[in-house]
Structure formats: C-alpha cells, structure tokens
C-alpha cells in the first residue's frame, strides 16, 4: 500500500512525516478495514437481531398490533410453564440419545476409514452423503419408514412377531425415531472430522505401540483417542449446539402436529416451542424470551466445557 502511494504521487515523495503516518496507518488500520465486512455483517445480522430479540423479550408483542412493556414477566412465566420444562426435558433427552451414539459411531467409523481399505475414497465420500441430503427430504423418508400404519419398520417388526410400535404418538418411540434421523444425518460428518484429525496423528506412535505389542483396539484407546481429544471436544460442542437448536427433524417428523411436537407435546423441543409461541400463537415476546434462554443455556454449556478443557490441560501439564 505504502509503495503504491509513492508510485502514484508523481515522482516527488511525500514528506517524511506524512509517509510515516501513512505507513503506521497501513500497519494499524488496514487490517481493521479487511476484517470490517465480517463484523459489519455480523452486527447487522447477528448482533442487532440478538439485541432486538432481547428487547422484544421484555415486551408483550403482537404481530400487526402494539407493543407493551412487561419487564421480566415473560421469563418468570417460562419458569412456571410446564410446557417450557417439558420442551427443555425433551430437548435434553433427544439431544443425549442422538448425540452420544452419533459421536461414538462416528469415532468407530473414522477409525475404520483410517485403515488402508480398498476404495477408501469412495467410502469417505459415501459417509458424507447423508449430511449432503436436505433435512426435509431425509425426514420425510424416515417419517414414511416410521409410519405406524404403513411404515416399513413396523412391517418388519410384524414379521418378527412384534406388535406395531406407535412411533409418532408414544413418547419414547417418537424421540428415538427423531434421534435416528439426527444420527443418520450427522454421523458421517463427524466421522470425516475425526478422520482428518486421526490422519494428523504421527504414524510413529502407532508403530511404537505396535512394537510394544498393543492390539488395534489398544492403539485406538491409548493412541488415537488421546491424540484427537481437542477434535472430540469440538464435535461435542458443535453437536450440543445442534441438539439444543433441534427443529427441522421433529417438526417434519410430526407432520401436521409437528409444531406442537405431537398431540401431547411428547417431542416438542425448545425451538419448536419458540416457533409455536412466535408464529402460531403470535406471542413474539414470549418466543423471544425462549430464544434468550436458549442462548444463555448454550453459553452455560460452553462455559462448562471450557472449564473441563482447562482442567484437562492443567492435569496434562502437571502430569508431564
């Protein structure tokens, strides 16, 4: 930048004071200019909505109508609302039964893909295919498979002599069905992340372990897992955020009663409750309050995870 200024200024170099000012400006200001677009967009589409939602959550808002100050009433009514607690519990249970198996399976899958398999490239692309499928398409297919009256899964269970399972109207079957969809979609994605991390693990470690007589399983447990721990933590955080915001799968799985999470709210997640409040019953203030509670929850979970990481680091340092 500084050179181009000199080149275009027509021969006579600018006085030394100005030049050094420009140089300092170049050094100090230009990086800000370069990062500005992101932060401007973030301010417009991230920060502003966040603050505006916070403002809305303190009011009684009605689409097409007026706004009234309510203070913290929206939050206090959430605390006593059994639907909020129900949605929170559902979000938690669906989150656990989808995230835990998902990440474990992804680890195993990544470990297998890390072998020198024939057609490795194909398998690596193939595990990503579910992730590339749209939620809507995948969920609609699964909803058909889990259809209580005509679905393939109940048909197969019938062959095996089991009674048909009410996949949608019973609580746990419905939550399990939704978790299956989530797991199907994200396992491959996480597997590829693990795989990338595993490939960065030095080969010598494995060789040394093999010389020490460690089996494949032992190598996996004592070499692979410790080496990719930061990556595992990353996927746990990302999956937790995803699980907290779970929306599309239960909504589409429930079909016509998807927004309320089934006739008895048996699989209504926090996001669905927020959507129902805001867009179905038009209580935008209460919906905003839920949005903020979700944000605070995520910050809380993030904080806890950071603490765990830190204590891990400390342990490692003191251990070595």
């Amino acid at each position, binding site marked *: 930048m500084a050179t181009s200024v000199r080149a275009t200024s027509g021969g006579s170099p600018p006085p030394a004071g100005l030049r050094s000012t420009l140089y300092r400006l170049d050094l100090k200001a230009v990086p800000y200019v370069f990062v500005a677009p992101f932060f401007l967009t973030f301010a417009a589409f991230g920060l502003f909505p966040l603050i505006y939602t916070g403002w809305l959550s303190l009011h*009684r808002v*009605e*689409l*097409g*109508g*007026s706004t009234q100050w309510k203070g913290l009433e929206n939050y206090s*009514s959430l605390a006593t*609302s*059994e*639907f909020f607690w129900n949605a929170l519990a559902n979000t938690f249970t669906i989150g656990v039964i989808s995230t835990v198996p998902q990440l474990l399976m992804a680890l195993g899958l990544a470990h297998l893909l890390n072998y020198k398999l024939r057609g490795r490239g194909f398998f690596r692309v193939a595990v990503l295919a579910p992730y590339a499928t*749209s939620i809507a398409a995948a969920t609609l297919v699964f*909803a*058909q498979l889990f*259809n209580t*009256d*005509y679905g393939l899964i109940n048909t197969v269970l019938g062959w095996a002599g089991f009674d048909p399972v*009410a996949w949608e*109207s*019973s609580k746990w079957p419905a939550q399990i069905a939704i978790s299956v969809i989530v797991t199907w979609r994200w396992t491959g994605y996480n597997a590829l992340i693990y795989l990338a991390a595993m490939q960065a693990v030095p080969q010598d470690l494995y060789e040394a372990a093999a010389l020490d007589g460690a089996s494949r399983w032992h190598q996996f447990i004592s070499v692979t897992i410790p080496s990719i721990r930061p990556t595992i933590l990353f996927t746990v955080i990302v999956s937790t955020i995803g699980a907290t915001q779970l929306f599309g799968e239960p909504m589409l799985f429930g*079909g*016509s*009663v*998807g927004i*309320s999470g089934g*006739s*008895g*709210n048996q699989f209504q997640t926090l996001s669905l409750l927020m959507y*129902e*409040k805001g*867009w*179905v*019953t*038009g*209580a935008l*203030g*209460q919906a905003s309050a839920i949005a903020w509670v979700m944000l605070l929850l995520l910050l809380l979970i993030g904080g806890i995870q950071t603490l765990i990481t830190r204590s891990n680091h400390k342990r490692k340092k003191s251990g070595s």
Partner: protein
Amino acid sequence: MRTSSSRHGRGRRTAVNAVAAIAVMATGAALLTGCGSDGDGAAGGSGEQITLRIGTFGSFGYDNATGAKLYAEYEKAHPNIKIEESNVADGQKYWDTLKLRLSRDSGLADIQALEVGYIAEATGPAMADKWTDLGKTGGADLGAFLDWKVKQATTGDGKVIGLGTDIGPMAICYNKDLFAKAKLPTDRAEVGKLWAGDWAKFIAAGETYKKSAPEGTSFHDSASGLFNAVISSEPVQYANTKGELDYENSPGVKKAWDTAVAATKGELTAKLRQFDEKGTWNAAFKNSKFATVACPSWMTGIIKDQAGPENQGKWDIAAPPVAGNWGGSFLAVPKSGKHAKEAAELAAWLTAPAQHAKVFGVNGNIPSTKDTLISAAVQDAKLPYFGDTPIGKIYSEAAAGITPAPISRWDGQVKTFLTDNGILDIEQRGTDPAKAWENVKKLVDDKIDQ
C-alpha cells in the same frame, strides 16, 4: 438443486420480460384506441397501466389455468389493469406472513384473502384500521350477501373490511359400499333420516354400523373431524356474544367434545388426523377405511382426488344431523396499497353474484350471495363422481340452516389445541378425557398471550 433453482430464476425472468412486453403492447393498444377503460371508471379512466396483485391461499377458483378465468375476463374489460395472483397452499402460513406484512405495512398485495377463522382478528382493534372500508369504496352491493357473512367482516365501528367469497355448509359424505355391508341403508334420503336432528343419533348409527361392519373399517374418519362438524353446527362456539374467547363455558364446545369423546370411547373412529401431511388420512380414502366423513362442500373435491377413479360411485352425500358451516373466506383491501380504489373495485367484482356462480360451476365453492344460492346454476348442480348427487341442492339447504356463531380472534388457535392436543391425544394415545381437557386449558393459558 442449485441448477434447477437458477433455471427457475431464469424462467421467471423471461416471464417477467414477457409480462413487461405484453404490458407495453397493451399500453400501445390503449393509446391507439384513445382510452383504456370505458364508463366503468376503473383506474379513473386515465388509461394508466396498473398491476393489481391478489394474495390467496388454498383454492379460490379465480385463476385462468384451472379456475373460472375471472382474471382474464376482468383484464379484457379493463385493458389498463393487469392482475397477478400469488397463492400459498397453507392457510396458516399465509395468515402468519400476512400479519407480519401488515405490521410493517410492506409487501402487501392489493387484495388479500382472509379465512373466516381469522376474520375476528382482522376486524379487531389491532388491525381494523389497516383495511379499506369496502362498504364505501368499490361499489359492492352488500345487500346481495348473506347477512351474517357481512356481519362477520364488519368492525366495531361499522366498517366492512371484507367481501364474502364462499361459505362452508356441511353435509355427511358416506361410503355406500361399506354402508351396504354393514346393513345400513344406502339411499341418501334414508341415510339422512338415520341421524336427522341430533348428533347423538349419528353416534347411534355408528354403533349400529360397528355391529356388522366389514373388518378393518371404522364408522367415522377422525374424532377431531367429528368435533369440528359438531361445533360447526352450534350457535355458541368458542366465543361469547361479545366476541370474547369463552370456550370453557361454551355449550357448543362441551357438546362437540362429548360427542367426539363418545365416538372415541365407542371405537367408532379410524384414529386419523385430517389433512395429515404424511398422507395416512388420504390413503384411508383410497383403501375405504372409514364409512363417513363430515363433508363441507370443499371436502367433495378432496374425496374425489384421494379416493380416486377406482372408487367412483361408491361415495354419496347425505344431509347432516344439524346444519353447520365449516370454512369460508373474504377478500379484503389493505389501505396502504397504491391502487386501493381499483383493488376495491376488483374485489367487489370478484365477489358479485355473477362471479360466485361462475366459480361454483368450476370449483364447487358454495356462494355467499343470497340470489346465487337459490339460482338454477347452484340448485341444479350435480356431482358425477358421487353418482350425480344434487350437490347444489344439498348444500344450499344446509346453508339455509346455518346459525352463525360469534367468533373471537383466538378461535382458530383454540380449535387447534382442542383437536390436535386434546381429542387426538385421547384418540391416539388413550389419554383420559378429563386429563386431556385439563391439558387443553393449560395450553390455552400458557400459549395465548392475551
């Protein structure tokens, strides 16, 4: 996905160009002939080229492709006006978007259709000022409409914000095959007599059906459908006479709830949810899983489409136990539109008796204008799929028996809670009715921010 959407975009652009080209040509023609429109006074006779946009949901039967070609007809009479319809299939989504746009006064079409379930919200204090008074603007003949239809769209201070399109008089559609197998009469007059006058008799007919019913079939499609049918025939529904939500003390809600619960307890229903997105309800039509369904006129189209040609002649329509109204819409004109006057004129024309008759002929929408209801076009109408049922006669008779109930702005929402979270829960999950009722009350208290 990406390529197809961009191709779509290009196609739309071409369409826009084509429209622009046509508009230019039309302007040229208008200039050559001296003036666009004639004595109608549309667009002030200035010949200025304008586009009127109309926002609808579901099927209004106006369009040029499958409807009564009303837009083409109006454009021909008013060469300076071009009409564009934007349609949303889902009425709830349509209304949600419309509310957002109203609150921002932007993105609104010149004419917006309103469903009866939301008309109380639209005429309510929060929104009443957003609409043009169609009693004054547009030259509609309010006297031509059924009186209660006009009343529903009238605000507290006497403004008429919507003109009636169709109404939803209700009958009972029944499967003659299943009725015959269950040793019930199949003649529509006889069937009507089975339950004439009382929903309890309808339940009794269901018990009779069950005694010798073919394996795997039920008497009625869904308990929530039955709930809707019963409440649609009640003079007091979700609101009191002041238009305030009072479903807890409503005799209509109690009767509908009890009837639906009785049907569930007696296992007379197929435990389905109407309009279920997974198509289970639709499939049940094709597979003849149930013998009766509450049948507003628009339901006949659904039966025809879902039961398919292989079931032609199996279905028939009988008079309902009690006459009721389920559905119906209005056309309203937002004040903020640039062409509010022309839009009001178009709305008045679209809802005039002559146009009601044309739409009925093509789409089967039962008119909300008095004379059209008794006109030969409606009275003599027959439906071949149902074995030439005199559909016009049945539905206009049902329409005559309608006692419109006061509506509150929360009706649509409370109805959803009662049917989807109350009745459906009893029906599908075996929840105790008393507990389900408590759940509904909690839902209403929690989710409606009054």
